């Protein structure tokens, strides 16, 4: 009888081990940032900073306003998505880090590198900083896109970047319809 119980228990354990192996998330999932999620207009708090997305808009052309109200038009082969947000560092000077839009199918798009936006600006503790971030992406990737901010970048030498870090995820509620022109102000960081 005891032998039978041991055999059944062993078989069950074997099945459990197999199931655990199958259900184990892959490394990309295990190491992904621990994200705080929120909606437009909400404060999303993480250890390095708090982010509030005010609005997001899609345009076929972008107007960049710089110093002395200088305006420049920027074309794209896709569409521009501009996200207007306020970010506040929690405890010390930090930059937002990696800012991306994630489409519904999981494809990720980085913020434009053609001019400086809020993603590379210094955020100071307790001092809210308003700004915008621009993305270029194919028109069919816009609908349902999520703003994803990860890998906060500390600027002092006494802090190194964490391998696994906190993140922010905000659903932008974009329909995919684009207006002719969206405007963004260049950051002077």
């Amino acid at each position, binding site marked *: 009888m005891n032998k039978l119980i041991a055999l059944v228990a062993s078989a069950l354990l074997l099945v459990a081990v197999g199931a655990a192996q199958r259900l184990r998330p892959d490394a990309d999932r295990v190491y992904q940032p621990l994200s705080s999620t929120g909606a437009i207009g909400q404060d999303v708090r993480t250890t390095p900073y708090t982010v509030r997305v005010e609005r997001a808009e899609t345009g076929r052309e972008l107007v960049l306003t710089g110093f002395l109200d200088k305006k420049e038009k920027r074309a794209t082969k896709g569409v521009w998505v501009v996200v207007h947000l306020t970010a506040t560092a*929690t*405890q*010390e*000077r930090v930059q937002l880090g990696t800012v991306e839009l994630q489409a519904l199918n999981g494809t990720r798009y980085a913020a434009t590198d053609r001019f400086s936006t809020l993603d590379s600006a210094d955020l*100071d*503790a*307790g*001092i*809210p*900083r308003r700004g915008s971030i621009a993305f270029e992406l194919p028109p069919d990737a816009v609908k349902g896109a999520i703003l994803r901010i990860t890998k906060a970048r500390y*600027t*002092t030498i*006494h*802090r*190194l970047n964490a391998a696994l870090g906190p993140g922010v995820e905000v659903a932008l509620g974009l329909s995919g319809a684009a207006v002719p022109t969206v405007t963004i102000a260049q950051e002077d960081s």
Partner: protein
Amino acid sequence: MSGRRAKRDKGVKHLWYGLGLAAAVAALVAVQVVPKLEEYGLRSGGEPIEAAAGTGAAFEGSTWRLIGIGRTTGDNLPPGTTAVTAVIGVTPRDAAASKAMSKGCEPSVRDARARTWTPTTRLKGVPKVSTLCTRIDEKTYKPILAKPGVEAKFQASFAVPADAVSSLRVEVRLRDHHESFVRLTPSAAPSAGPPPAG
């Protein structure tokens, strides 16, 4: 009776086994963590050497004191912030101490909620006081070592949220020295006007 005793003995044996296992796991974790403690110190900014309010402190062979901290003015201050300038005095004891600060000092301020701010150059500060603890030769760009026994004064200005001003303390770190830093506490809340130049 003997069966019960045998069972108890077995239980005690299991307990020892469990305790041994717990100790082994703890030792394994310690072996992993202890070598990283220094790195943790580097990341957290090191240990503070605290000076009592209004007094100086010895740090890396020099004596450091907070000459004053007060409100100043500046351009394009973010809304809700106040400009604050700290004037710090440092007296190196010997040539080694002068050399220790020749690579530069990194002042910052910290409030009661442990929020920290680094200097900003947009603020006016105090006239005729350097922003560097070791002056730089304008021709050779090499540091001019401070004279041992003579106090060198330097200032740093910060834009901080208005609610942080009353509890600010000043911290100074030395470049290439991550184990510790000096923390200077003012004898009173920052003055309404600029601090004395010394």
